[in-house]
């Protein structure tokens, strides 16, 4: 493997809402008093219009900022919460990112280490691959999982060029160790006794794989600058750290207090966090667990500090809104059956023909730019919208997803059905031309005013509950200080 092949860029996405664990315990403490010890800090949760696909798109956009999309010839999406079992989820992501049609794309699932397995495979190839991982797992109300788990996504771009980190070595172990499982079609995990999982799973299986990797790769545990062990919980078991000989100060935070354990995304999220603060020539060990373990050891390059312009992890952590509405959280995850009213009965049936025909418009937010007048419009049409120049079939594809926009009109609608009322929407005008009527996501009353800067995000538009189909489109969200560099 050449020295200029490795991790070119990394990105992360953390949903804005942070559910306060105290609010969970306030609701469920009467039933599950044993979880009081976990009722601290907050966890990131998706809004009703987000899922693994939309989060993956957000993370990928963070990762690809400033990178050449044309070079990406493979795309992988790892998750145990993919919205579709048989429709290529990474194919939806590809459309949203406006990547080339002539590429490979694949979904990986089945374990919490699906993401690292894909990354390992990518690092072993010579292709430019965008490795994505995203999870928004469902946990029963009153369960430990509900306290531990958070939602997030991260993206790692692997390829040739000027890597921020290169792979020094890797090791995998596969054992059908069933600490928890979730069968096809089921919403919830079933977990075995915690003490057994800790001793046999974390210590022996994962710890054993890490020990083998260290030996195989030829690094000293004490010399590793960033030890990233992706496990749920407030911290790693002390015995685990001690027995492997890591410097306790090098062991990375498990992100329990501010994010929660984000499943397949977690190893990538931890890697993003580490790479955002790592110095050149440092050693990073990344390990994930799930019916065995994946272990990788990286070495950072001098580019790791030079290319730190996106910083999706830190910015994502900072872009937050504390949420104490536990019932809304349950409702958004389909765990509370609220009376939605007649307006929610609207048939969201999606003609497959129309989606296929308009996929660039709908999934890619591609408008048209007239090559005679330069007029930009959305959607693209045969005859230009320009009032004083009737140009016909002169429009070239014009992607709008990375353009900033300003609010021209708005309202907060309490009549129309929304899982998160009121529904904010209005007309927005893009910088450089083009306008659309757009729904606004992740906003409050204070966020909307005429002239407000907005940026576009890929979100769920609606769900067809009858046929179980998820419809995606783009929405506008306020440009906040922490995210200003994301849209260019």
């Amino acid at each position: 493997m050449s020295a200029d092949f490795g991790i070119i860029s990394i990105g992360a996405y953390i949903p804005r809402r942070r559910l306060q664990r105290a609010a969970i315990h306030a609701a469920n403490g009467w039933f599950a008093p044993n979880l009081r010890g976990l009722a601290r800090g907050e966890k990131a949760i998706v809004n009703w219009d987000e899922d693994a696909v939309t989060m993956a798109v957000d993370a990928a956009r963070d990762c690809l900022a400033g990178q050449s999309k044309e070079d990406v010839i493979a795309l992988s999406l790892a998750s145990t919460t993919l919205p579709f079992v048989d429709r290529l989820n990474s194919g939806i992501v590809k459309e949203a990112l406006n990547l080339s049609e002539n590429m490979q794309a694949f979904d990986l699932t089945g374990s919490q280490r699906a993401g690292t397995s894909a990354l390992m495979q990518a690092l072993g190839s010579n292709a430019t691959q965008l490795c994505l991982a995203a999870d928004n797992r469902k946990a029963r109300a009153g369960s430990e999982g509900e306290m531990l788990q958070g939602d997030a996504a991260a993206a790692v771009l692997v390829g040739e060029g000027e890597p921020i980190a290169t792979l020094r070595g890797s090791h995998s172990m596969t054992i059908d160790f069933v600490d928890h499982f979730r069968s096809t079609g089921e919403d919830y995990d079933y977990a075995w006794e915690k003490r057994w999982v800790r001793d046999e799973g974390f210590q022996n299986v994962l710890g054993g794989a890490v020990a083998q990797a260290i030996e195989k790769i030829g690094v000293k545990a004490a010399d590793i600058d960033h030890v990233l062990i992706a496990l749920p919980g407030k911290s790693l078991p002390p015995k685990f750290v001690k027995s492997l000989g890591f410097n306790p100060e090098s062991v990375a935070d498990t992100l329990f207090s501010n994010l929660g354990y984000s499943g397949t995304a977690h190893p990538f999220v931890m890697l993003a966090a580490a790479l955002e603060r790592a110095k050149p020539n440092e050693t990073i060990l990344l390990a994930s667990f799930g019916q065995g373990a994946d272990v990788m050891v990286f070495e950072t390059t001098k580019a790791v500090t030079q290319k730190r312009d996106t910083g999706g992890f830190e910015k994502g952590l900072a872009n937050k809104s504390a949420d104490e509405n536990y019932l809304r959280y349950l409702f958004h995850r389909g765990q509370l059956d609220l009376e939605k009213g007649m307006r929610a009965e609207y048939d969201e049936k999606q003609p497959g023909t129309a989606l296929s025909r308009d996929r660039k418009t709908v999934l890619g937010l591609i408008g048209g730019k007239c090559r005679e007048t330069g007029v930009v419009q959305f959607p693209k049409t045969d005859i230009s919208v320009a009032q004083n120049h009737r140009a016909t079939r002169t429009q070239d594809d014009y992607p709008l997803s990375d353009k900033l926009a300003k609010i021209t009109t708005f309202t907060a609608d309490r009549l129309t059905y929304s899982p998160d009322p009121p529904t904010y929407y209005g007309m927005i005008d893009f910088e450089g031309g083009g306008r659309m009527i757009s729904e606004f996501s992740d906003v409050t009353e204070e966020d909307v005013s005429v002239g407000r800067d907005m940026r576009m995000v890929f979100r769920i538009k609606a769900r067809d509950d009858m046929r179980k189909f998820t419809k995606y489109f783009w929405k506008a969200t306020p440009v906040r200080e922490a995210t200003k560099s994301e849209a260019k």
Partner: protein
Amino acid sequence: MARGIKDKVAILGMGCARFGERWDKDAASLMVEAFEEALEDAQIDVSELDAAWLGVGFDGQNIGPSGIPASIALRLPNIGVTKVENYCASGTESFRGAVYAVASGAADIALAMGVEKLKDTGYGGLPVRTRGTQWDMIGTNGSAPGNFAQLASAYRAKHGVSPDDLKRAMAHVSVKSHANGAKNPKAHLRKLIDIETAMKAPMIAEPLGLFDCCGVSDGAACAIVTTPEIAKALGKIDLVLVKALQLATSNGWEMQGAGWDGSYMHTTRMAAKRAYAEAGITDPENEISLTEVHDCFSITELVTMEDLFISKDGQAWKDVLDGKFDADGKIPCQIDGGLKCFGHPIGASGLRMIYENYLQLLGRAGDRQRKDPPNLCLSHNLGGMPFQNVSSVAIVGLEK
């Protein structure tokens, strides 16, 4: 400009059902109620009708997509009945069909019927329905109040009006219409309200509260039209003539182009200009006696005063507060109570407005009759959303 419709068609008779939550009546019975009054007014036999148009806003909502239900309900003599729909302008669209048929000479006497049985849908407001396959993928999941509420945000920003000032002017619009509707036996909502009630009502779509929204009702209204010559031959003395009938339809510029600021209706301005030209009106503020405009929401009525050029840009909110459009003001607006008090059975509304203008011109409006005799009366519909719509303007007046 085309030769236009001015003075070519006379209204022979009109009818209007009582609007409201007509739990006991279906669309057929509502049409019969309006039709009986119109036939009586026109003093003709049903066999004298040559053609008919039926305006219904919601395709297949309750009577299906054809003219057959009107033909059956009214037992028409197997004449051509054309169903038309053009969102909230469907009633005026139906009138346009009948008027054009008479003007062309293809029909001597034609019927324009509009009906909507909204209260069979189960919704408090208008039912949720598709606006087309592509809109369902890229449009907003918004309601009618939400779409019109945006006018207020843009109007405030453009003219520097404070939210409280605009809300108070909007409240005045509704209070005025309720005062008018209370006097009208055919109106749905006949209760007086005050400014504070309107301003403090529950929010529907910011900044529109409950009393900024029109009612939701069942209703039907119709017109029988003919040529002025035939009307006179049939014994009519005071003739109400069609002076102008214009429709303007968005071509996408507002929503996709550049330049529209969201604070007014582009199409209404186009339709108004054409209608004034057609009717020979050069000074609408001083020539129009009264208006029945599309007050689906208070803010719609307010900006429409500017779109019809009877208020200056940015001044309508002040004119409203000054009482210019009150029943005793310079140019009364919704002297019958408007959509606000009649509710808005889509297909019927345009004809209900013309019905009031017809009564006012003939001095038959009872308690709410304008004392200063009206000369030219304007009605206006706005179908769709401010950013993409069809707007109609109809002007009727007495034969000179």
